[in-house]
């Protein structure tokens, strides 16, 4: 009775090598755990946040990982609701990635609140008008959905498959996966949007504030849109990275190309919308409040300079979008993934700007100084933690679960 713990027909490295590979990641997790203890036990004075920077690197990381984790929802949407079959070859991986991103997001959010005893008031005493409430509800439920989507993948481990109940369960869950995926898409749409709403509703902060569409500010849609556009690219890039590390071809190129094409068009439309948004904001919203466009950019400190806008929209927006919508761009894998990385950076810049630059820009004319902040070690290590955590979870998942349906075929 010796069933291999590995998926059928694939090769995996030795246990020793595997453990050695995970060791650095575990080390990071250990330090991060200590940092988390300090933050939760001694409070947020362990960070470098202050009353001007009430939101800092954690919230940025939160927004970024959620947006990047958006690959799970959008590929789910494509695979199960639109019925793009090819995407199914990468959907398992997207789900694992999603689980990593969303659990990280919740941990970071919990750290940011720094109040483990009372953080749950967001549910218990919910104010439904708050964008953050919407985020918290959707995020938590969506994480639940992601885990539900992840369960059948776990159940496909050969050892677990031997238990008849789990065998049936995984089969049955696969059967109705579309229902879960649909719920996930619904929830994602709202929490991605609400995350955009978080800065967008701040009408006291003209840098963040955007006029409304329905009951939401513009940013609601821009955030969902950008997450849908860049999330799959992130999934693809991470997949490619896994291929590189395992030195195996795991997904056929046409899957990448398809994702790239869809994302490319999404990205292009998004970046056009974002540009229009910027123009409207710079010429209508800001001047109405007495601000010139350049008031929001500063060369002191230089990391809030206008270069950030150029980088976000042109270099990390239009450029990758144009690469991805052209067939030649997609066929050249270096160009494809180069563009994907640019788009990912662009998305992270966008989230950075919407959180940190918003807070850094001085509003009172008598306070000309820009607020500056540099994260404390506790913040840095916990922000790095999702990477280590991702390495661990993906490694284990890859090792024991049939994440890539095409692996066997591509690695005979």
């Amino acid at each position, binding site marked *: 009775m010796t069933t291999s713990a590995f998926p059928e027909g694939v090769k995996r490295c030795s246990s020793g090598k595997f453990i050695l590979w995970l060791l650095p990641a575990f080390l990071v997790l250990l330090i991060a755990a200590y940092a988390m203890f300090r933050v939760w036990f001694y409070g*947020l004075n362990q960070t470098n946040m202050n009353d001007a920077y009430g939101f800092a690197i954690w919230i940025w990381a939160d927004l970024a990982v959620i947006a990047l984790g958006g690959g799970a929802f959008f590929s789910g949407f494509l695979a199960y609701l639109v019925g793009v079959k090819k995407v199914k070859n990468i959907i398992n991986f997207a789900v694992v990635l999603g689980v990593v991103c969303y659990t990280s997001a919740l941990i970071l959010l919990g750290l940011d609140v720094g*109040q483990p005893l009372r953080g749950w008031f*967001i549910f218990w005493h919910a104010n439904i008008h708050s964008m953050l409430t919407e985020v918290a509800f959707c995020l938590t439920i969506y994480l639940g959905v992601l885990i539900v989507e992840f369960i059948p993948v776990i159940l496909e481990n050969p050892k677990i498959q031997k238990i008849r109940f789990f065998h049936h369960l995984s089969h049955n869950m696969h059967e109705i996966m579309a229902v879960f995926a649909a719920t996930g898409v619904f929830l994602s749409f709202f929490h991605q949007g609400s995350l955009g709403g978080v800065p967008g509703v701040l009408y*006291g*902060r003209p840098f963040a504030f955007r006029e409304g569409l329905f009951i939401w500010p513009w940013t609601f849609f821009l955030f969902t849109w950008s997450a849908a556009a860049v999330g799959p690219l992130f999934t693809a890039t991470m997949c490619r990275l896994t291929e590189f590390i395992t030195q195996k071809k795991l997904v056929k190129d046409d899957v990448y190309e398809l994702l790239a094409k869809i994302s490319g068009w999404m990205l292009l439309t998004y970046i056009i919308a974002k540009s229009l948004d910027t123009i409207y904001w710079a010429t209508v919203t800001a001047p109405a409040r*007495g601000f010139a466009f350049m008031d929001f950019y500063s060369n002191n400190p230089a990391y809030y300079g206008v270069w950030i806008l150029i980088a976000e929209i042109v270099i990390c927006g239009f450029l990758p979008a144009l690469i991805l919508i052209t067939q030649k761009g997609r066929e050249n894998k270096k160009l494809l993934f180069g563009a994907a990385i640019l788009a990912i950076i662009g998305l992270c810049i966008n989230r950075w700007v919407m959180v940190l630059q918003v807070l850094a820009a001085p509003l009172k004319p008598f306070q000309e100084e820009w607020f500056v902040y540099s994260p404390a070690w506790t913040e840095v290590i916990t922000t790095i933690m999702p990477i280590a955590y991702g390495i661990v979870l993906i490694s284990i998942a890859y090792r024991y679960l049939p994440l890539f349906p095409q692996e066997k075929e591509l690695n005979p």
Partner: protein
Amino acid sequence: MEKLPSHTKARHFGMVIDLDKCTGCASCMVACYSENNVSFRDEESIKLLSINWIQVYKITNGKPFPDTEVCYLPQPCMQCDGKDFGHPPCVSVCPAVATDFDTPTGIVSQIPVRCFGCRYCMAACPYHARKFNWWDPVWPADMERYLSPDVSPRMRGVIEKCTFCYHRFQRARQQAYYKGDAENIKEADYQTACTQACPSGAITFGDMDNPDHAVYTLKKSRYAFRLLERLGTQPSVYYLSTRKWVHRACDNYLEHEEPAAFAGKSA
């Protein structure tokens, strides 16, 4: 929309601060600390970590010696009315209903024990009026004995801010009830601690809708303006200054724009 209690008269409390009178002495700040059980630490020089419900800023006209001028600007929570009288920037963002707009008084509440410290309201407030308790407050060596029972001491990890000394309104109202005339609260019966403390009489406080109160007239002055008024936050704190540079320093103007009081057309 919150319904107004049928038994209370609606008021709209506000403050007018005459910047031409303020000397920057900080009596208002200290009186506020003392009135509201504000905590303190041995290291308070990093102002973005220091809890102040009212803070006096020093602003200058930027001209070289000897044409330099200085103006002191006391800044409490602006108690914004926000959009449609009831939606200040900070209130609707609170995920836990720890803050709301008190429609009968126009005061923005903050209930620290309900707050769990997400700091979203702090990010939403353009005035930096909301302060976070980064540390657990400690009152060393018997200092707990001077704490006032009217204001609940806060704990680590919650936001606090100026309440326009709402407990003093409660005190006045309680006495009015006791005397049998619940609506009879005179201007002098309810004054904030900072108003009372200002040794120069720069601060005036009262019901902005009541013509008998000084603020009613003062806020209509040609030289009255509000801090960052153009953001649309509708603050309940007005400032007075006859100096144009002070007006310019307190709101954002594009180069060709002029503060309303000096815009050629009379206000």
